[in-house]
């Protein structure tokens, strides 16, 4: 046994005044009375036992000294050496993924059941044991560091909530092992419903034990939901919908599709046991907004009920971009390919002229074929093969036979466009003099397609001579123009696909965020469906959306924005099959953790307990109630 606080032994000096007071006390108080004959009558009836009367003073002193000894012993916080050697460090990995929201047949959720199991483990901790809690929902993170204080653990446990995210069990195990690094008797206790367990856990590593909670349940879920504008129909859009039946019996249900809360379609779906149905649906419309799919069990329509134990995956959302017609003014002496390509784009309301306007109206685009005024008019401008130097560039002759050496694959301006095999006999050699971004460059690093970012409006410049090459004959040409029109309309960000919970993504900033500001915002603010806010990092005109823990429609806007017109929606859905399949897990609980009992209290606790008992005994001794 060793003492954690040996300096507390000094408290033993308290025994000195106790002995002094005892010696003073045994000198009895003398009371003069007129006669003792009445007292003699009293004690003749019940004479006190003489032996005990002799001993009771001494026993009282001994009890008091023992009381002090026990209290001093408790203050020194003694620890049994063997207990120190057997000290346990346990990291509880608590699964907070979406599947833990599943309800059992008794109405409790898997997470509540898991929390009760962890509480039992906390109650069984010995005083020298330490425990930490790591959660695995969406992101593995430490909810409570190693501590032996049960209330701290309980408080951390109470704060844990289920997420809609996936199970990051491997990350959580790795994090737990880092917490236990250097401790020989460290153990990881995974409390999970068994969904998406890694092979390592299924094999039951020596330092990891798995405690399964929950029961096999039936579930029907939307496992995929995406929407995009059609590549062939500018006003059309396509919906990708996966509905899965995670039960052994068939399921009949309906999927309600709504756009901005207006019913779009109702799909009756009949799924066989274990079937995953994929539907690709085409719709037409220029309106954009929040597209929502919801599973409904309508008994009147013959749908099954009582087959769904997890509700969070019954809904899915996606953001449908709005299609807007763009007024485009083409200034040309006659470029049939260019005019026809623009006319073919259904988003474009084309006006052809030979005189360049001095300014471009807001929301419209000016396309200049060769003839470019100096300075370039303010507003969105697309320049094809410039023939004069302007305030943004100067010219340095012709670039013969340019070969594409570099193409910005990530730019939405070049989405679905490949210029590698395009024959380009000539191009203008352009020397940018203003802030620019090269999108396509020749091998000689001369820009072939570049963007000038201006506060007054972006300027895109294509230096290729359209009259000599085969670019106008390629499908890439109308797509290139459509991308440019879309870029000017600011609709590219709207093509952001629906994320899965726990998934991060880096996307370009919406163009209008940059068009109306001299610089891109330093950070963005992301707001959850429940109103919680967090900051997203912006780097080189791109914003990184972190792993989202909650399914629903999130909003993104520049940090510090005061208006709502810059808000962009981000759709997020439950991570997929791994969280929605609630059938029998493939692993069984293991018992690697030695069960602890409530008897593991510290020695000082027992010392204080004994002192309390002695205090009661001494109180009785002092009062002498039992003598008579």
């Amino acid at each position, binding site marked *: 046994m060793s003492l954690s606080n040996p300096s507390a032994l000094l408290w033993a000096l308290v025994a000195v005044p106790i002995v002094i007071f005892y010696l003073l006390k045994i000198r009895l108080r003398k009371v003069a009375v007129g006669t003792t004959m*009445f*007292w003699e009558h009293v004690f003749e009836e019940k004479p006190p036992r003489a032996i005990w009367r002799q001993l009771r003073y001494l026993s009282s002193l001994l009890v008091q000294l023992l009381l002090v000894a026990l209290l001093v012993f408790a203050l020194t916080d003694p620890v049994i050496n063997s207990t120190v050697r057997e000290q346990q460090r346990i990291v509880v990995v608590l699964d907070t993924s979406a599947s833990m929201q599943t309800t059992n047949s008794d109405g409790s959720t898997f997470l509540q059941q898991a929390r009760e199991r962890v509480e039992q483990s906390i109650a069984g901790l010995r005083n020298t044991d330490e425990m930490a809690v790591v959660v695995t929902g969406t992101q593995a993170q430490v909810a409570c560091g190693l501590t032996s204080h049960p209330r701290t653990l309980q408080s951390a446990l109470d704060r844990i909530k289920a997420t809609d995210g996936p199970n990051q069990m491997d990350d959580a195990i790795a994090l737990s092992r880092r917490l236990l690094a250097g401790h020989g008797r460290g153990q990881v206790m995974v409390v999970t419903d068994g969904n998406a367990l890694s092979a390592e856990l299924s094999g039951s590593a020596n330092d990891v034990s798995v405690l399964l909670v929950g029961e096999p349940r039936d579930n029907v879920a939307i496992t995929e939901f995406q929407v995009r504008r059609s590549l062939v129909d500018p006003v059309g859009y396509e919906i990708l919908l996966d509905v899965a039946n995670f039960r052994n019996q068939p399921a009949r249900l309906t999927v309600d599709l709504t756009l901005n809360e207006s019913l779009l379609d109702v799909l009756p779906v009949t799924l066989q046991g274990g079937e995953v149905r994929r539907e690709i649906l085409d719709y037409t419309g220029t309106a954009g907004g929040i597209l929502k799919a919801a599973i409904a069990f309508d008994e009147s329509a013959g749908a099954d009920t009582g087959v769904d134990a997890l509700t969070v995956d019954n809904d899915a959302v996606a953001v449908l971009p709005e299609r807007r017609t763009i007024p485009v003014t083409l200034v040309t002496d006659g470029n049939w390919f260019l005019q026809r390509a623009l006319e073919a784009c259904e988003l474009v309301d084309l006006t052809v002229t030979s005189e360049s306007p001095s300014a471009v109206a807001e929301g419209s685009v000016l396309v200049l074929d060769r003839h470019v005024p100096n300075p370039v008019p303010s507003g969105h401008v697309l320049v094809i093969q410039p023939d004069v130097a302007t305030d943004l560039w100067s010219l340095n002759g012709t670039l013969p036979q340019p070969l594409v050496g570099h193409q910005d694959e990530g730019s939405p301006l070049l989405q679905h466009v490949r210029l590698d095999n395009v024959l380009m006999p000539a191009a203008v050699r352009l020397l940018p003099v203003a802030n620019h971004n090269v999108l396509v460059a020749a091998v000689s690093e001369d820009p072939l397609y570049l963007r000038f970012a201006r506060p007054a409006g972006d300027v895109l410049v294509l230096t290729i001579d359209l009259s000599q090459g085969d670019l106008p004959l390629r499908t890439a040409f109308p797509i290139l123009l459509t991308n440019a029109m879309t870029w000017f309309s600011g609709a590219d960000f709207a093509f952001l696909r629906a994320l899965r919970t726990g998934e991060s993504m880096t996307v370009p900033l919406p163009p209008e965020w940059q068009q109306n500001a001299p610089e891109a915002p330093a950070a963005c603010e992301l707001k959850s469906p429940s109103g919680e806010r967090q900051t997203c990092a912006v780097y080189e005109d791109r914003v990184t959306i972190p792993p989202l823990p909650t399914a629903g429609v999130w909003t993104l806007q520049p940090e510090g924005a005061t208006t709502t017109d810059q808000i962009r929606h981000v759709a997020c859905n439950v991570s997929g099959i791994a969280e929605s399949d609630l059938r029998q897990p493939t692993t069984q609980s293991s018992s690697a953790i030695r069960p602890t009992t409530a008897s593991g209290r510290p020695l000082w606790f027992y010392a204080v307990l004994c002192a309390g008992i002695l205090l009661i005994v001494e109180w009785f001794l002092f009062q002498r109630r039992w003598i008579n």
Partner: protein
Amino acid sequence: MPLFDNHFLTQLEYLSLVSRKVFQGQLMAQRRTTRTGSGIEFSDHRQYTPGDDFRYLDWNLYARHDELLLKRFQEEEDLHVYLLLDCSRSMSVGRGAKFDLARQVAAALAYIALSDLDQVAIYAFADGILHNFPLARGKGRILSLMEWLTELQTGGQSTHLKALTSQFLQPGPRPGLALLLSDCFDSDGFETGLDMLRHHRFETSVIQLHDAEEANPRLLGDVELQDIESGISRRLTVTEASLQRYRESFAAFLKSLRNYCSSHGMDCTISTTDVPFDQLVLAMMRADSGPGVAG
């Protein structure tokens, strides 16, 4: 504070007037004894006890009811009043309040008797007679009597009533009124001493004084009780239960004293020291026709 101040003397005069009103119309001396004697006026009956004079038995009643009852006559004579004042150390308990009250009561009774032309003597006793104030008559002796009482101190050994009465009766004093002022804490019992007075035809009154602390002590825990008279110490652990038994024992003692006096036709006044002497004397006079209790 002096034992007998002017206020005390004023109260004495008041008590004397009250006593005259109560005992108006007496022959010779103005105090009429209640003991059987040569008087002719029948007073009452009382139970016969061994030692009583057979001549005063009411044979008619015995013949009718088969009960021995003694006829009592009021004796008309010049009364001798003997004040037997306990001066044992037990009277000094309670910072002397008991002894002070006893002396004040003694002075008051002596004043009343002297005012009624009775003869008064005081005997201070403990385990025997320590001092005595010889028979005196007339109010003019009251000052010397009070002076004598003032100088009186507690002393001697423990209270011993039998020794007191033996010494008191040895010279053969003329029977009269014997007033015992004592706490009666006689370890041998108070009965023997009182019996001897009764057998010598003394009309006896007992005035038992005790401190309230003696009746209801507030002791708890380990104490060493020291008998102030005998000097014997006793170590006790006093509990609530033992205190309760003490109270019961003390109450039984007072009850036995009262019963004894009642059964033998004695006046008995029991009082604590917190009762003023004048109230105590008035209570005695109101209970003159029979045993009384004050306090």
